[in-house]
């Protein structure tokens, strides 16, 4: 008889995993293993875990098959593939080599430094026992039953942790100021943004534990989780986690036998970018329209319902149990001196590997793009990296060796922001990119203050003018002037940062702006109003392909004779350009 084996199957059931059919994959695994009586037949002990996101969503469904600690990962698993994996791998012990993850997955994963994302993809986010199994809630227990409030805060200050939600303010200092306020009622809010969804879906208890410790540290008995209602899976798993934590007595009255009581409530946001801004968020919790308040007073002084309030990002909270558990020194050994720890980003754009990544602070942009990202997709050279979401700055290729941390980003005219990171290549037009982001920002302006409400609109109009070849040199000066006004005079961060893409773009890609404005040309060939397609006669073989793909009937010509494009009829879709095998179509 063969020795008993343990088989563990982990199926990614984050949002992308579910969307790719992960739930079916998991149930077919269970069904086939039971149907075949595998446990009895070869005496294997099987367990199944639904895990959170590993960040490499383009290859979902990702499935780990672990037999006696031997782990392999399958990628792009479809329900139809399960049977073969069961019969060949689990029964015969021969992994299906073709379906395993490749080098890209390895380099994507191994070059990261996962501390908050670590458990996502390993543990079952719906099981508190899994979390407890990795020392979950020990940090809370230690903080609440063995440490004084100021000791907890001191430790967070020592760790150097700074807010992961955008501003990068010292988390410990924020807590300290709030704790020192005279009012005895205090609130603590967890701000769950888009980029935090994998955390909430993959390891919700860490967020809850961080919030709990924060509540204890500042002397608050009431925490709120503010999240968009649409993030269904995040809400579901956080809700379940709270219920489980309540059952265990981690939330409620007299926690860990102390006199500390803490409760957590949900508050739901709607589809508005501004709902993430802390003061607008508090208005929203109070049942009002989400429009930011002026500062001062700051939320730590007068926040929710006028009470001292700490508001932190969900990733910030996820770091707290680690800092209390493993120590401030351990934490500050990761990253740089001023920017400690790690930061989660959504890497996207023209790189080979896109997905959710966690990097140590200070990692050079180059290593992120060429290491984790696996380099540029389709061989076109990198032009710029944009960090921080729609109001992040554009970082040119020449500065890729700078390390990504709060200081450098600020030097580069960018922000950590929402944790977005988009890689652009030489085929992308800087003006169009900037216009795209401005389109979003002007739509999302809350409308309260004129510099943002009207300023973003005017900026969009001017950028549109540039992309359409209607701009004059003066318009650049007007844009700069508007940017300056919005930066200093807007009420909140949305307006204050909205001009970042433009300012950094103009700084680093001035020639590209000038080409649009002066020569009415788009060097990247993106702005349709500024490009024309024509056929180079001596290259054209008369294959007729361009004529076939043209949706506007703008191409004419006979077989084996050079074709022509009628400029008046051409809608500049670029279909002919892409289709031509002889590089006979010129884009100018």
């Amino acid at each position, binding site marked *: 008889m063969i020795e008993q084996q343990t088989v563990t199957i982990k199926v990614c059931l984050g949002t992308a995993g579910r969307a790719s059919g992960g739930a079916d994959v998991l149930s077919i695994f269970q069904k086939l293993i039971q149907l075949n009586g595998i446990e009895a037949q070869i005496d294997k002990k099987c367990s199944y875990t639904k895990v959170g996101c590993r960040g490499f969503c383009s290859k979902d469904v990702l499935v780990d098959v672990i037999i006696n600690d031997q782990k392999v990962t399958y990628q792009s698993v479809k329900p139809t593939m399960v049977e073969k994996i069961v019969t060949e791998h689990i029964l015969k012990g021969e992994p299906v080599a073709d379906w395993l993850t490749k080098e890209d997955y390895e380099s994507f994963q191994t070059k990261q430094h996962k501390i908050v994302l670590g458990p996502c993809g390993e543990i079952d986010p719906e099981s508190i026992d899994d979390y407890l199994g990795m020392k979950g809630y020990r940090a809370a227990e230690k903080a609440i039953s063995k440490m004084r409030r100021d000791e907890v805060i001191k430790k967070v200050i020592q760790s150097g942790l700074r807010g992961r939600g955008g501003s990068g303010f010292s988390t410990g200092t924020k807590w300290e100021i709030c704790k020192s306020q005279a009012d005895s009622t205090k609130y603590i809010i967890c701000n769950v943004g888009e980029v935090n969804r994998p955390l909430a879906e993959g390891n919700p208890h860490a967020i809850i534990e961080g919030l709990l410790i924060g509540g204890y540290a500042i002397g608050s008995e009431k925490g709120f989780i503010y999240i968009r209602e649409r993030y269904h899976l995040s809400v579901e798993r956080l809700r379940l986690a709270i219920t489980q934590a309540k059952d265990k007595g981690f939330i409620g009255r007299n926690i860990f036998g102390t006199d500390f009581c803490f409760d957590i409530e949900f508050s739901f946001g709607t589809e508005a970018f501004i709902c993430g801004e802390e003061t607008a968020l508090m208005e929203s919790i109070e049942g009002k329209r989400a429009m930011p*308040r002026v500062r001062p007073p700051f939320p730590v002084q007068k926040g929710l319902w006028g009470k001292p309030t700490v508001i932190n990002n969900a990733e910030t909270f996820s770091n707290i149990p680690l800092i209390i558990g493993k120590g401030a020194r351990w934490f500050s050994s990761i990253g740089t001196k001023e920017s400690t720890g790690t930061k989660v980003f959504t890497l996207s754009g023209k790189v080979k590997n896109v997905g959710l990544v966690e990097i140590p602070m200070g990692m050079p942009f180059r290593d992120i793009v060429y290491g984790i990202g696996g380099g540029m997709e389709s061989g076109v050279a990198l032009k710029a990296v944009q960090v921080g979401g729609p109001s992040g700055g554009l970082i040119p290729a020449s500065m890729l060796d700078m390390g990504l941390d709060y200081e450098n980003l600020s030097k580069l005219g960018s922000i950590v922001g929402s944790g977005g990171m988009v890689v652009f290549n030489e085929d992308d037009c800087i003006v169009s990119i900037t216009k795209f982001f401005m389109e979003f920002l002007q739509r999302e302006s809350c409308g*309260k203050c*004129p510099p943002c409400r*009207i300023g973003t609109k005017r900026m969009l109009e001017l950028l549109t003018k540039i992309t359409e070849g209607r701009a004059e040199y003066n318009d650049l000066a007007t844009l700069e002037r508007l940017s300056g006004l919005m930066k200093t*005079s807007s009420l909140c961060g949305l307006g204050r940062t909205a001009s970042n893409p433009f300012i950094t773009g103009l700084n680093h890609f001035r020639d590209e702006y000038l080409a649009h404005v002066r020569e009415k040309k788009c060097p990247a060939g993106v702005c349709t109003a500024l490009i024309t397609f024509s056929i180079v006669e001596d290259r054209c073989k008369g294959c007729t392909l361009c004529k076939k793909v043209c949706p506007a009937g703008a191409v004419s010509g006979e077989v084996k004779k050079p074709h022509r494009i009628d400029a008046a009829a051409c809608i500049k879709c670029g279909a002919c350009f892409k289709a031509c095998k002889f590089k006979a179509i010129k884009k100018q």
Partner: protein
Amino acid sequence: MSNDREKQKTVRLRINSQVIDVPEGRTILEAAKEIGIYIPALCNHPMISQSGACRVCIVEVNGTPVTSCTTLVEKDMEVITNSPYIEDLRRDTIDLILSDHPYDCMVCQKTGECELQELAYSYNIRKPLFSGERRIYDKKDGNRFIERDMEKCILCGRCVKICDEVQGVGAIDFAYKGFGTKVCPPFERDLDCEFCGQCVMACPTGALVGRDWIGKGRYWKIREVDTTCSYCGVGCSITLHVKNNEIIRVSSRPDSVVNKGLLCVKGRFGYGFISSPDRLKQPLIRKDGRLKAASWEEALDFAADKLKKIKEAHGPDAITGLSSARCTTEENYLFQKFMRAAVGTNNVDHCARL
């Protein structure tokens, strides 16, 4: 009063190199006003909470621009209200607001008392630098009293706040977002509220004006007559705007003792009866089924005679007296005295009790 002042803690700060002592808790805007330094502001209003929305009142505090309507005075603050840097920022914000404004001052009811027009004038913004699309709203609000021209609205929020915080009604709020943000009643229905017109009073531009005011005469063409509203015993101070011996509008001064400039729908908009041809100007007595003009003597004799006859035939309790809230307290006192002493009944009541 002065004793209170002395007890209050003061802080010493500098505004445009003028050293002043101001009671704690004041805003920079208030402190500057006290020493005669004018800071323009479009969303600020003394009756409502400050939102810092319009960004026009910014000043430099120790080198950093802040809104003076929301920033409290602090010890040793260095405030500069008029540096070229600040004036440029202010100018540009006003310019942006104007770039989305109809620029039809020639026909605007508000001309002459419009706060935005005043700023355009003092910053000499004949044509905005930041021009572009303007909001166009075709649908107009069909309510009876208030003309709401949302193309002229600068979204300062005064109307929203005064309706909510002062009147306690909350008939309007911001809707939509971005450039399309708009103040309106729920679902953009026609306004259907108390029509107190507090919003109209607070509006800095021509976005909200009395419907009946339009075309009747502008601010500087009228004679103002201060009087007391005759609608009820509260006795609000009102100011009649008179042109060619016709009352074309009613307002109230912000420093009026009883009502601090606030009015109700009747006081503010119910002045039409004054020059109405239907208005009752002399007593009428019905004879042979038709109302005929009579003298006061005749009318009073007639009423007294009838009351006497009723009392003789059915006793005093067959008569009841209802008095009006439009009478003063003294008049109401006299009325009940008359009913009790002259008529001899306790049947006396008052409309305000209903």
